[in-house]
């Protein structure tokens, strides 16, 4: 690994750093603008031209305000939404990863009849637009009598399970068969092989799909809006934000929405920071030489 990074010359290094800065600006600028807007008052938001930092309309001096943040944090809805979103997205991810990696092991590494139909069946589950399945899903949820949070976890399977299954299938398939065979020769059952050899080897894929599925569940709006309509205490963050009616009727609290958006993005970034080591830690040298 070290060998490959040593012969960088100066130009290459500058170009590389320039590229990193370019990528970072592209990806982060809109978020910076959201934070910028969240620190502005109503009148600062409507200044022309828009300012890159919160400035006083008259004197143009720097004057950020935290009023949007305090309004958001005083709203019990928002904090409860944060808790609900954490519960729902975590459970969804865990369930989708367990069911998905089991299925993916079968689909990627075992030989059995009906492999292809099973693969397509699982993908077909997520091919309808959410709006279309909403009424049918609502009927199912009502019939099963699930409470709101549980019904969210299960309905999120519609888009997370096919995703985890397909991604993990692709990754399992790429692992050399020799690995499984040598484990079997050593007397391991296929399931033991799966748990103690294949799963650790695909850790980057597991963490990646887990993170992506978590964020997808965290951000989902339509199902959450529908299934929490009977139980407002189960509202997740996106729904809670949508219900920020604003103190003034018909006036949209844009600054508060941006403050809330900035607040909910931070825990996700921390989550990624914690897990990102795992994304790279995947293949330890020599593990596949078997």
């Amino acid at each position, binding site marked *: *690994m070290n060998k*490959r990074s040593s012969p960088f010359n100066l130009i290459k290094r500058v170009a*590389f750093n320039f590229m990193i800065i370019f990528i*970072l600006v592209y*990806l*982060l600028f*809109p978020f910076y*603008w959201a934070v910028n807007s969240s620190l502005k008052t109503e009148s600062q*938001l409507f200044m*022309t*031209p*828009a300012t890159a930092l919160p400035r006083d309309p008259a004197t143009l001096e720097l004057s950020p305000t935290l009023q949007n943040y305090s309004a958001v944090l005083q709203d019990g809805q928002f904090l409860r939404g944060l808790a609900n979103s954490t519960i729902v997205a975590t459970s969804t991810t865990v369930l989708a990863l367990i*069911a*998905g990696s*089991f299925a993916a092991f*079968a*689909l990627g590494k*075992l030989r059995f009849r009906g492999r*292809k139909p*099973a693969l397509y069946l*699982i993908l*077909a*589950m*997520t*091919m*309808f*637009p*959410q*709006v*279309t*399945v909403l*009424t*049918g*899903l609502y*009927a*199912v949820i009502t019939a099963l009598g699930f409470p709101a949070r549980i019904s969210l976890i*299960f309905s999120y399977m*519609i888009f997370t*399970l096919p995703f985890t299954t*397909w*991604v993990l299938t*692709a990754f399992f*398939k790429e692992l050399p*068969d020799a690995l499984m065979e040598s484990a079997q020769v050593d007397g391991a059952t*296929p*399931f033991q092989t799966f748990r103690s050899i294949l799963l650790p080897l695909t850790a*980057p894929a597991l963490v*990646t*799909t887990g993170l992506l599925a978590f*964020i997808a569940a965290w*951000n989902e*709006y339509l199902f959450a809006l529908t299934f929490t309509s009977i139980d407002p205490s189960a509202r997740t*963050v996106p729904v809670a934000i949508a219900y920020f009616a604003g103190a003034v009727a018909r006036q949209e609290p844009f600054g508060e*929405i*941006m403050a809330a*958006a900035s607040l909910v993005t931070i825990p996700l*970034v921390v989550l*990624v920071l914690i897990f990102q080591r795992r*994304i790279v830690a995947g293949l330890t*040298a020599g593990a596949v030489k078997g």
Partner: protein
Amino acid sequence: MGSNNDSTVTKKKASSRKPKGLSNLAKREERLALRLLLPALLIIALIAFYPLAQVFYTSFTDRVFASGQETNFIGFDNYRRLLSVHVTTLDPVLDEATGEIMIDPDTGKEVYERPLDVLPREPSRFREVNQFSLFGNRYVIGATDPSFIQSVSNTVVFTVVSVFLELALGLAIALVVNSKFRFRGSMRAAMLVPWAVITVVSARMWEWMLAPSRVGMFNALFDWMGAIDSPIAFLAAGTYQLPAMIAVDVWKTTPFMALLLLAGLQTMPEDIFEAAEIDGAGKIRQFVTITLPLLKPAMAVALIFRTLDALRVFDIFQVMLGQAQYSMASYNYFQLIGNRAMGLASAIGVIIFILIFGFAIAYIKMLGVDRNE
């Protein structure tokens, strides 16, 4: 392709085993596979089977959403209404006095007949979707549901352009982040920020940045650079609507693509590259002959899920364009919630389903992910 060879080797090995042992082993493997698939299949049966079956069934009825009205089975009528398209020529209007083609005094362009006069009225009225000129003739595309046909074309253009851009950008970012540098860890977290911003909120955020006056970031910026004379109405003007949607989607979902490709890059065995290095293969050669082929499975899955999401795009169209311009899913929403035409909405769902299925199969065949054994 390493695993291709691997699996043929396994096959040979398997067939050289004693027949009895093989069938026992195969049976055990089959039973294990079914047991492992069980949780996923149970979840599908519980949560997805009824809603999906209901969509198919409802698409053949005239069911009205949230009403006690009687539902009738109407066969393919919904599909016929959505998909009837008619293309016909438009003749130029001749000036009665001179016998020449009439020219509009305001625009200076030739005048053609009104599309409504030439488009069929049976079984229901066809209305204009678009006009185009080909080989000196003028044609009009009419449809019984022009909004839907327009939404299909919007969605397909949106999907093809944005998924292509996301793949290119995502690959570039994944390659950068895959190489070693000091702040790689923070970079990996930073790169997920767009994907982490709640979709509905990010649509509002972009709406604000694209505001049609200098309150919006883009107009303020362009004005400051002196690039524009007057503010651009990005979301109201037809020419900017689709590009704006694409820009927002590319920004939002490139991290998704980049992270999946990065995982693909990370699971590649180092020793192949070391061997290639020893053999004297340059970086570009290594990329084309090793990285890209090995990345295919990850790329295929990323493409399938991105395309699938793009074809179902809803939030950004709904929030930013509302009824001004539809995607298939936002038109679907409008028909269901706005018009309560649940039968028609279901038919739209089925059409989207079929379209997505087509794309998925095309990817699978093209990228050869399905090759097994």
